[in-house]
């Protein structure tokens, strides 16, 4: 990908919110949360929101790292692998009880939600998103 900082932030917020939101709606009922559906939705959506909020901060770091690259690109695989650091941080924060509104979350429920959401967003950004938004890839990932 060839993101600019602005493009990173816009893509992070919009794609995670919209695509991630739809996916969260679909997947939550089948997650092994052990909690009632309403409770589960609350948890999964707060986690999604955390991916966005912390993600905005992460994007600044990624943008900084990108400056060391001559091509000023962001390799495709890095877009996937950054899910590891982001996922681990959120899991840590959940267990420290630092994410407001989220109590105990079973490990598998978190892993499934986070990994599928992350993969989906990554895959869509690396191809299909170019179909509706023909200018997006030429504008550093900006929609607006």
């Amino acid at each position: 990908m060839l993101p600019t900082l602005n493009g990173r932030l816009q893509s992070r917020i919009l794609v995670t919110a919209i695509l991630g939101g739809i996916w969260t709606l679909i997947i939550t009922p089948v997650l092994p949360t052990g909690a009632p559906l309403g409770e589960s939705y609350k948890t999964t959506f707060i986690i999604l929101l955390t991916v966005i909020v912390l993600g905005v901060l992460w994007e600044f770091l990624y943008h900084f790292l990108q400056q060391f690259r001559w091509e000023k690109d962001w390799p495709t695989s890095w877009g996937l692998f950054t899910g590891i650091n982001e996922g681990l941080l959120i899991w840590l924060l959940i267990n420290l009880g630092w994410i407001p509104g989220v109590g105990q979350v079973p490990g598998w429920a978190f892993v499934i939600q986070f990994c599928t959401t992350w993969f989906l967003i990554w895959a869509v950004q690396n191809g299909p998103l170019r179909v509706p938004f023909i200018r997006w890839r030429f504008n550093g990932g900006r929609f607006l």
Partner: protein
Amino acid sequence: MSGDQPLPQSAAPTTEPGDLTPELIDTDIWTDEMVARAGIPVVPVPFVTVGGGIGSFVTVDYLRIYGVPAQQIVVLTGLDVPWQSYEYLTRVSQIPRTERLRSDSQSRPDNIWGFPSYALSEAFAAKSLKEFLWPLWNVFTEPILTNYFTPRAGQAFSTMEKEMNRIGYLQSVRKGQVRMVRRRAGGGYYTILTPPAGAAPTKRIAYQSQYVHIAIGYPGLRLLKDLQDYRERYRDPTKVVNAYEPHEQVYDQLRIRPGKVIVRGGGIVASRVLQRLIDDRDKYNLRTEILQVFRTFYTGPHGKNVFNRRPGGHGWAYQGFNYPKSVWGGQLKEKMAKLEGDARAQAYEEMGGTNTPFRKDWLEQLKRGRSQGWYREMQGAFDSLRPGPNGAGVVVAMSTQHGALEEYADFVVDCTGLEADIRESRVLADLLDHSGAGRNPKGRLDVNAQFEVIGTRSRPGRLYASGSSTLGGPFPGVDTFLGLQISAQEIADDLARLGFVKRLGPGRSIAQWWRWARNRPI
């Protein structure tokens, strides 16, 4: 009756009907009456694109997908198919259909969305698991573990052919050579076409259009002065060749008789020529000796600071594409768009220059040559060339960092660029002289961010240009498939703002893509 009374049409008596008159040639802005007086038939059409190469093709592709009917577009060209010039240049410079190009997986002239990418298409057309996985693995791990994925030339041509048929491109093609584009009093332009001899009743045809797009590719082959002097003086086109000219005879001769070749240049064409020489050397057990001469010799990574280091070594500068990748959409695209004048020219200097992609097989070949002593690289600039003793071979006089030097070779293959001045093209020279076009900081045609040629507006019409003749503008990646598509998108969006066509929004884009995916005609 009097011979001193000027005739009303004042045309030179030699002008045949339907040809350019001195009046037309000398007038910057033409009236309809002037064209009528010359007897040139006028064909009205809203949009004309000149060139008919890949630049014209992708622009027409965008416009057709945006919703412009084929009848509203005319393509003026000498080519039978859009990739003809390109295929010729790639073939002579050692990229046959089976070899891979330089651009990336998303740079698809047959697909404005770049999805599915070439890699995905190649994977799904694969006949074995390995062939399926390899392209996917490549794009996933590039450019860290693998080099950038690049499509085979053949894949690019066959997919373009499919898209050409899908959009009914050939309906819009009119054959001939374009002589000039002039502004029309009252708006728009006249584009003068010289059809092939005998193909039309008049010598010229005038296409009168609101919009004109010029994509004529390379204005010409640039032979450096030393090379040109040699050719003119010794009338010998066989021992000293440019890589963009057919030069199979060099490889043929080397198979008959061992010889030494001097390769000049450090770009991708030099890489290809070296690969061919070494492949032949291996395949036929030849004893070819190679000396490569770089004008700028990079001994390692280079660049002004830690944020701007480009890899390099053994003379080469390594870069996946001709500019850093983000000029086609990211940070550098945005940065360049803001620069003007000298600052822009300098940024071009820093990112561009001659470079070649880092490919393991090429590196391995050169390493082997170096250690076995049949390949050598050096820094140097050619001063002159002359035939060798008794007319055999060539002697090259060079200036190097260590002083003057002469080298003997059987052949010299010059791999420097196709960078002729834009004046070499009559159409562009005419634009500079008569239509208000100017030059950008790199001396090429000055275009704005929408690829309109600055200074040529003929309200309400507009004149656009894309491709190599516009290099040096606010967008550096112009002379590539993706760059031509980026230009085409800007042009199509500009035309949408002018009300010529509807802008392509997400809904229509998805619908159009779906048609593309099922190969449904539009």
